[in-house]
């Protein structure tokens, strides 16, 4: 199957998935204990005011009507207004998404860059010294609470050592951000040769990205090791050894054959770590979607929660789509499926 028809099929498969997601996000808020009318009306409202707000919000309609209205609005890009910011939720999320994506991709990217080689090296000599050390390291990464790690890093590198800027946003307040190209201050700064802005953006990125990398590297180490070990005991690798292929060739073969499951796993990491991302954003006052969503949940801003969950779900759909395409490209067997 060529890439075009594969992509088309996967996109078609995404449609029912998205409808399901819409239904779940819709129901999530309906069955929750949130009372938007009460929140909006405030404690002193009269019954007449209550009824009016209910009508305005469309909450007097039957549930299925509400759902079709919701789907219709979402398809037109209307996710409702957040009563916290009094702005369209879509605008809020879009504005913040680049900040989150930047942190997530640098963090998990660095985590993969550290985790995959460590996992492979550990697998090449199972139970060797390196394996034992890496096992302890990944166990630490698993067990450290995210917010604690973030706070301790700020305490050490900002408060004690003054190596890092304070955990307050993506850039120093004293520097004006570069013009909008991608939305990433670092990349935009570099593209426009605004070195001061780029430097500031970079120095603000360092701690949260390292934090994210540590949290994401732990499972990547563990899974890469397990995947590589399984490949190493496969018929193909055993036969390659029996053919007297040099060790380097065999190792390269192990790495190549581990690539598909490792890439798939890193993809699931990207989507699975959005919870961790929220906490890190919170600690570093990052102002991303995660922090926005967390705030919305705490404050009961139900349209924002709905939008946040929908955005996360769509993000997962996109990530898995990209992972599938990458796997399709590197895997000769994929064409058969």
């Amino acid at each position, binding site marked *: 199957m060529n890439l075009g028809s594969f992509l088309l099929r996967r996109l078609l498969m995404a449609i029912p998935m998205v409808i399901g997601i819409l239904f779940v996000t819709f129901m999530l808020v309906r069955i929750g204990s949130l009372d938007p009318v009460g929140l909006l009306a405030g404690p002193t409202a009269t019954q007449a005011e209550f009824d009016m707000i209910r009508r305005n919000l469309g909450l007097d309609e039957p549930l299925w009507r509400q759902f079709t209205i919701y789907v219709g609005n979402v398809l037109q890009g209307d996710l409702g207004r957040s009563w916290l910011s009094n702005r369209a939720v879509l605008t809020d999320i879009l504005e913040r998404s680049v900040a989150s994506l930047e942190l997530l991709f640098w963090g998990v990217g660095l985590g993969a860059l550290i985790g995959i080689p460590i996992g492979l090296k550990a697998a090449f000599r199972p139970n060797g010294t390196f394996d034992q050390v890496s096992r302890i390291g990944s166990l630490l990464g698993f067990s450290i609470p995210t917010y604690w790690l973030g706070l301790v890093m700020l305490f050490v590198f900002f408060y004690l050592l003054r190596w890092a800027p304070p955990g307050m946003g993506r850039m120093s307040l004293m520097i004006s951000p570069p013009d909008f190209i991608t939305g990433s201050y670092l990349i935009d700064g570099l593209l426009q040769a605004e070195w001061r802005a780029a430097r500031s953006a970079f120095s603000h990125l360092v701690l949260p990205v390292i934090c994210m990398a540590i949290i994401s590297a732990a499972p990547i180490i563990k899974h890469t090791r397990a995947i590589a070990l399984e490949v190493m005991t496969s018929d193909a690798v055993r036969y390659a050894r029996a*053919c007297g292929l040099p060790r380097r060739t065999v190792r390269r073969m192990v790495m190549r054959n581990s690539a598909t499951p490792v890439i798939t796993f890193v993809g699931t990491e990207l989507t699975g770590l959005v919870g961790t991302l929220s906490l890190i954003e919170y600690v570093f006052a990052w102002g991303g979607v995660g922090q926005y969503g967390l705030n919305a949940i705490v404050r009961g801003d139900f349209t924002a929660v709905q939008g946040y969950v929908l955005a996360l779900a769509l993000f997962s759909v996109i990530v898995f789509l990209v992972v599938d395409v990458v796997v399709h490209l590197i895997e000769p067997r994929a064409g058969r499926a």
Partner: protein
Amino acid sequence: MSLLKVEGLSTHFISRDIDNRMRVAKALSGVSFALDTGRVLGIIGETGAGKSLTAQSICGLLKPPARIVGGRVTFDGQDLTAMSPEALNRLRGAQIALVVQNPRTSLDPLSRVGDQLVRIHQAHGRHSQAASRKRALEMLAAVGIPDPEGRAKAWPHELSGGMAQRVLIAMALMNGPRLLIADEPTTGLDVTVQAQILDLMRDLVQRFGMAMMIITHDLGVVAHYCDEVAVMFAGTIVESGPVRTIFGAPGHPYTQALIAATPERKRIGGGGAQIGGEPPDLYNLPSGCPVRLRCAHATEVCATTPPERAMAPGHMVRCHHAGALRDRTRGSVA
């Protein structure tokens, strides 16, 4: 001098149990045989008898806890058991080539067939890419693959089982080996394809002047394709010799039972015997003859080590009663 000579090869699995007591499984105890160029040796025995382990011990493919604890393997005058892993690695796939079962999963799923052939050629000598490619196509043609050019571009998952086995044989031939070890090469293939593959291998042994060892549990394969046979039981060779002699007059009660138990024998009414009993526990082998617990002819003397008794030139039987049993009705053991 024989191309391959195995003398008293013993391989044990040495591990520790949960109480840290040493546990030793005597998987091979004193295996000896010799193989000359141009000959095909069949190694036959039930599951767990040590057939594949013999092959792995020869090639140095043992993984801990398995270890060679005694004996010598002489290949072309060099002792393989004393060789460094690197030197053995250079020999494997070059002088000694292995053909395994599960050919489809044994090929690298992420490389095209031709590239894998080239890779093994390049791993064992300095050849130009073009020379390796040419050799690969020649070998694909030699194993009877139609359209070698096209097949070289195929991915392993596009091959049928029989085709994949031919590719594996082509890989084995790439570096002009002198010894071919085929470990159940036709298990899992269709019967008609089995015959084609075995015919091909038999033919290649003659054409390229190799020796071949076929590991199988199919007596029919041994009878049709081998010159010599070694019957293994619980890590020892209980009987070995020319195929004709052994099938004509098996000396060991176990061999007799094995031959009597073949479906062909059943059909013509000559026995239809089953070999009763379980294979012995390798952690706790019986003293003396390993077969004695399952042998109807066992006497007290069998509890001591059975002798290597030469029945005829080249025909060895490890049984005290071999001579006496020979003239009786065959296949009535156990």
